[in-house]
């Protein structure tokens, strides 16, 4: 075992059979983190849930899947703890566990802010992480606020590092200017997960498309659950507006182009939201944003300055979209400010903030800086 090995523990960087990468914000986050750790002279590997025991190397990173997860996640984590020395938890563990004490845990935002969850049980899950780990890094300020309001004596363990956008990949294709007339494309760049508000987007979007012949909807969605795509596509095909509703699934490399062709981007999360990559990338691309007042989105958008903030409500979304369609000048101002705010969320700043935390928590793994 390498003397400067740091083992990342997470649910699934690859699918449980180890065959292909999983698409999602957490997974993107971890790939960037792995690159940063390597830059710092640390040798990272990844330990995750598996449908059987396997070991793969992807992009030079050793990844191990633990079949024990099929029986009990907590047992898989126990096995991982036995196989590793210094560890790093890429997300809060939802199962009873004993975190290794000199470790970092990342919180990607409050996930239980919906009636489907038991607040008491989920707060206990957070308490476990705050009590046992050394530092909890939160991607937004609202998780921190919830913890401070619930467990004030533990919240000093929290450091905030908001998510980032790659400002070179995601940028306006040309100087932003007033777009008066012409078609307007409204983009939904999220996974097909109930928390991400696909229903809200489609219901409001179709009302807008019915009324405005020049408006198109574009859904850039994942294919993690093909049955969800089938349901959504069937629904779209049953509408009269189907020709003006485009759906696609894109690789990360294609996303800059997807944003570049969008005028308005909607992030209609209903619950479980942090500082969304989609939101940050749309901002960096100079799109005009409509977001909900859920989770960390309010840490990225100031209502009326660099986007519009609404409640996750169909009428409010329709109203916001109508306002933007009618006001090209407002769209321009919001999108310009969105780009300039995004510059405070650069990948470099994110790395700089992480380097500081990693040096503090894992001083033994980092080569000294002279």
């Amino acid at each position, binding site marked *: 075992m390498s003397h400067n090995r740091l083992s990342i523990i997470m649910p699934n960087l690859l699918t449980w059979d180890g065959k292909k990468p999983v698409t999602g914000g957490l997974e993107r986050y971890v790939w960037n983190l792995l690159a940063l750790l390597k830059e710092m002279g640390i040798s990272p590997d990844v330990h995750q849930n598996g449908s059987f025991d396997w070991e793969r190397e992807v992009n030079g990173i050793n990844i191990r899947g633990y079949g024990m997860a099929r029986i009990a996640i907590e047992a898989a984590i126990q096995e991982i703890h036995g196989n590793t020395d210094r560890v790093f938890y890429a997300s809060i563990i939802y199962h009873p566990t004993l975190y290794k004490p000199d470790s970092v845990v990342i919180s990607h935002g409050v996930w239980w*802010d919906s009636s489907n969850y038991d607040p008491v049980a989920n707060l206990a899950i957070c308490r476990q992480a705050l009590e046992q780990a050394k530092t909890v890094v939160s991607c937004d300020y609202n998780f921190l606020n919830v913890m401070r309001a619930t467990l004030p004596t533990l919240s000093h363990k929290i450091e905030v590092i908001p998510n980032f956008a790659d400002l070179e990949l995601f940028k306006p294709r040309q100087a932003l200017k007033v777009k008066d007339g012409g078609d307007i494309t409204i983009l939904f760049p999220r996974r097909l997960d109930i928390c991400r508000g696909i229903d809200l987007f489609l219901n409001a979007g179709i009302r807008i498309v019915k009324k405005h012949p020049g408006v198109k909807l574009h859904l850039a969605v994942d294919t993690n659950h093909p049955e969800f795509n089938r349901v959504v596509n069937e629904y779209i095909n049953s509408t009269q507006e189907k020709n003006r509703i485009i759906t696609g699934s894109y690789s990360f490399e294609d996303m800059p182009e997807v944003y570049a062709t969008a005028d308005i981007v909607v992030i209609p999360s209903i*619950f479980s939201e942090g500082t969304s990559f989609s939101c940050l990338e749309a901002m960096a691309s100079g799109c005009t944003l409509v977001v909900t007042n859920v989770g960390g989105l309010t840490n990225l958008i100031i209502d*009326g300055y660099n986007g519009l903030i609404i409640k996750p409500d169909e009428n409010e979304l329709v109203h916001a979209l109508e306002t933007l369609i009618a006001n090209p000048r407002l769209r321009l101002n919001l999108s310009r400010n969105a780009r300039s705010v995004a510059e405070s969320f650069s990948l470099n700043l994110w790395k700089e903030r992480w380097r500081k935390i990693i040096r503090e928590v894992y001083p033994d793994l980092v080569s000294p800086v002279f």
Partner: protein
Amino acid sequence: MAKISILTTNHYSPEGNRIIYGGAERYGVEFTKMLVEMGFDVEWWQIGTGWESEIIPGVKLRTIPESEAPLKTLPRLNQAFYEKTVDADLAVYFVTFLAYPQVKEKSISISHGIFWDYPGFDTDLQTDTERREWLRRLYIALNGPQKVVSVDTATIQWAVSTWPGLFNKFEYIPNFVDTEKFKPGDKVLGNNKVRVAFPRRMTSVRGINEAAYAAEVLTKKYKNVEFHFIGRAHSDELEKQLTQWANRSQNIYYYWKSPEDMPRVLVNMDIVLIPSKSTEGTALSCLEAMAVGLPIIAGYVGGLSDLIINGYNGLLIKPTPKNLVNAIDYLLKNPDLRQKIGRNARETALAFDITIWKKRWAEVISEVLGK
């Protein structure tokens, strides 16, 4: 003319003598002016021995001699208010817990931010039973009114993470600033010094001790840096101590000014500290400093993250003494950055102009009154 009755705890002190214009009191004044402009008949109620006063000329403030506050709630005050305001068309509970246990048929409450997020709160409600009972009462208070207007998104997130069903109760109306009154201007004091201001109430939750520590460290390090502590403390004695403390250092000042004087004071400042540790909403002092175009160093607490985007229009820090010193030092060494984030602060402040605040409030009130 529809009548609005507003219940608060203490706009004036219960004896009616010591007047401190903190953020909530100023909110109350602007709120009253707005309601009067909208044509409502307004009256206020608070704790007191029976004296009467005015909150603004022509708007009465009456008192109710009920100050018993079991488990940080005021059920007897709430009940007396309910009985005394039979003629009200709409009740506004100026603090969320005042809506416990009973609300008027048409009612709104206002959350000025999370106020229980400091470790000391645990000693106020020492047992699990007390804590649970307090939460139960808070739930009743939040669930009663048709709308809870929250000045920040932190409170909404906490409430929804505790009781998901409350989501639709909340309306987010961030605090306001008059960007005509608070705007960049010329310094009277000149540019020979860099002036750091702490324009807050002088209390621990606002980070007074961290700021005082930073003032001592940095005035020793730099001869051209001044610290201005501008605001009232909780008592005459504390204010006297602060004056004595400030008098010991040549470049540390302590004084206070009326809200009307603050625009011309702030334009002379170069950096503003809002290093709150807890109990914070969308601080008026933060918005005012933003509107003047000043770079702000804010604690990452409560509603401040609704106003400040770290590195864009201010710095958002974990409010430890060391972090505060480092952040001030960083801005002292980077005048260009101060300029840039100060400009962005002014730009973002325009999105919180008082005219927008009034428009949002008008929508909520008409929704609840149902025209």
